[in-house]
């Protein structure tokens, strides 16, 4: 009995030591990993920050205007190029009877000497 306990205690002790050592090593590894990931996150954040600043810098209105003038065949929007949907519906309603009238004239024989009106085209 005494011998068994004498053998058991050192074994238990050794087991504990090894277990503890492993645990500590694992924790250390994980901590290293954590620090690495946090550093990486911080680096990414800094990179994002740089990109955001650059994006804003590249969006300088003056630069965009210059580029648009050089590369695009665009002009500032004129007032007559803008419309609202309400107005659009209104104009469709206005246009509908005229359209049918135009179609009606084209279906008949054109008057001699006068060119037939172009369908779909409305002079104002």
């Amino acid at each position, binding site marked *: 009995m005494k011998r068994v306990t004498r053998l058991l205690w050192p074994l238990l002790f050794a087991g504990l030591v090894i277990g503890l050592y492993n645990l500590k090593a694992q924790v250390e590894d994980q*901590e290293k990993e*954590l620090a690495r990931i946090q550093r990486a996150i*911080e680096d990414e*954040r*800094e990179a994002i*920050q*740089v990109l*955001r*600043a*650059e*994006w*804003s*810098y590249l*969006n*300088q*209105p*003056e630069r965009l*205007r210059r580029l648009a003038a050089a590369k695009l065949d665009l002009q*500032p*929007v004129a*007032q*007559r190029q*803008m*419309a*609202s949907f*309400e*107005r659009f519906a209104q104009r469709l309603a206005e246009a509908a009877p005229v359209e049918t009238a135009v179609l009606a004239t084209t279906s008949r024989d054109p008057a001699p000497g006068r060119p037939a009106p172009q369908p779909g085209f409305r002079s*104002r």
Partner: protein
Amino acid sequence: MMFRIRELCRPLSPGAQCRPGQPRFEGPLGAAIETGRTRLLVLGGLFFLAFALVGGRLVDVTLLKPAADPKRNVAKAAAADPEAGREFFRGEIADAKGELLATNLVTWSLYADPKMILDPAATAARLVRLFPELDRKDLAEKLKPSDKRFVWLRRHLTPKEYQEVIAEGLPGIGARKDRRRVYPHGSLGAHVVGYADIDNHGIAGVERQFDGRLKRGERIQLSLDLRVQHVLREELAAAVKRHHAIGAMGVILDVHTGETKALVSLPEFDPHEPGRASEEGRFNRVTLGTYEMGSTFKILNTAMALDSSVATLTKVYDARFPLKHGKFTINDYHGKGRALSVTEIFQFSSNIGSAKMAIEAGTPRQRAFMGRAGMLKPVSIELPEIGAPLYPRDWKPLNTITISYGHGISVTPLHLAAAVAGIVNDGKRAPVTLVKRDPKEPIPYIPVVNSKTSAEMRQLMRLVVEKGTGKRAEAPGYFVGGKTGTADKSAGKKGYRRNTRISSFVAAFPMNAPRYVVLVMIDEPKASADTPEATGGAVAAPVVREVVLKAAPLLGVLPAENTSELTDEKKPGQKAPAKPPAKPAAKPAPPAAGRLERAATE
């Protein structure tokens, strides 16, 4: 054995080391053993206490309050709040659409530890080779061994510079992570954003106003729209160039919310190098500079007369002869030499008529009105640079006369823009702000005039652009209305300097349901062949026209359509449908088309 157990300890027996029930040692060594035993007991007790303490703490730390250990919950905390545990960056400043106006970049800054430097002269020489702008003597002085263990050598290196310095491998020279404030849009909006110093303390503008919040990492979103700001700046800069002016100011306000959409003061400065800018460049003319506004003040004067029922639109004042008050004579620029109605007084900007209206209203009423319009207090905008208005402490009849046409009182351009915004916004003035408003928060409007007066003022302002001094501000489809102003610049006590003037135009659009106020002022425009008279109508009104045409689509204001069809197709050359002259500026065209929130821009 030198001792024997004689007896069990008896209670109250002589001898200190005896306990009841324990064997007692006697003899010469017995006492020593008793002492030893007591010592052992005391020691044992101490050890027990110590282990109990350690054990208790162990239970406490591992089982009872594990949350107190910050390391333990890193993952949990990160999941709950990704920003937790981050180092503080100074907060960003963004415009109304989220475009960054001020942000931070991580840079490296070079420092030296003089104690570690072996050869200051040689080190200085090698550093100067990398940074030619550093002074060698100055550098050697800094590097000389001293008690200091830390000296900044150069802040904010570029990545290339950083690489080069590190490659040199100089002992005692190191680089530290640093943060640099950057303004991606440079001088655009610099007067609003302001700037921070090298250690990221706000020095001017919003950077200073919200320094505390920015330092806590808060983000500040302004009401400014960068694209509108750009439009205003470009047009003002073009006007300055065209008229060889010394400066210009401009502001665009949302009349409903009081939000500042653009605020430009020319000349400007680069917020990255404020030290290099001139005093004038850093000076914010819109919020800090006070000026005599001139005729644009007639908007206030007329509104006062109409609102207090002193006058009606059709009331006639005799403006045939110059008005004399003491040794002063008040004259008209565009004199008509006849009696004028209130409408005409405004339309042709008659000083005589305006003065007569003010005299009739009386000084107390004028003063009270100026107070309501906010002319007697600094504007409550979120900037440290705000100018207090200058007005006569003792408001004499002569002051009443001159103030009626905008002289004898100096206010900032922002004052005027805010007051006009209030007058056209159904008489309700929204406090001016630079910070984007929360749409849910109610706006504490200040009443300036009643609804009827507001409607009449809108008609009058529209008339000025249709048929008065401001024709060049007409932007087809946007129903611009406004008032011209041409003020001779004050030369202190010496009176006024002729031909150094500020030409201005304050406008609102669309006049049928005003959304925005635009104020443009050109400082000291010179007359030229194109503009023989550098007046507000000739110099500032065309700028307003351009600004409205370019900024309105960005601000989500759609032009009215029927007028465009008239001008483009049926009646070329004619700008707007004719209106009966007796009833000026009848409400122009469809209000429905004028408002389509942001649909055009987003």
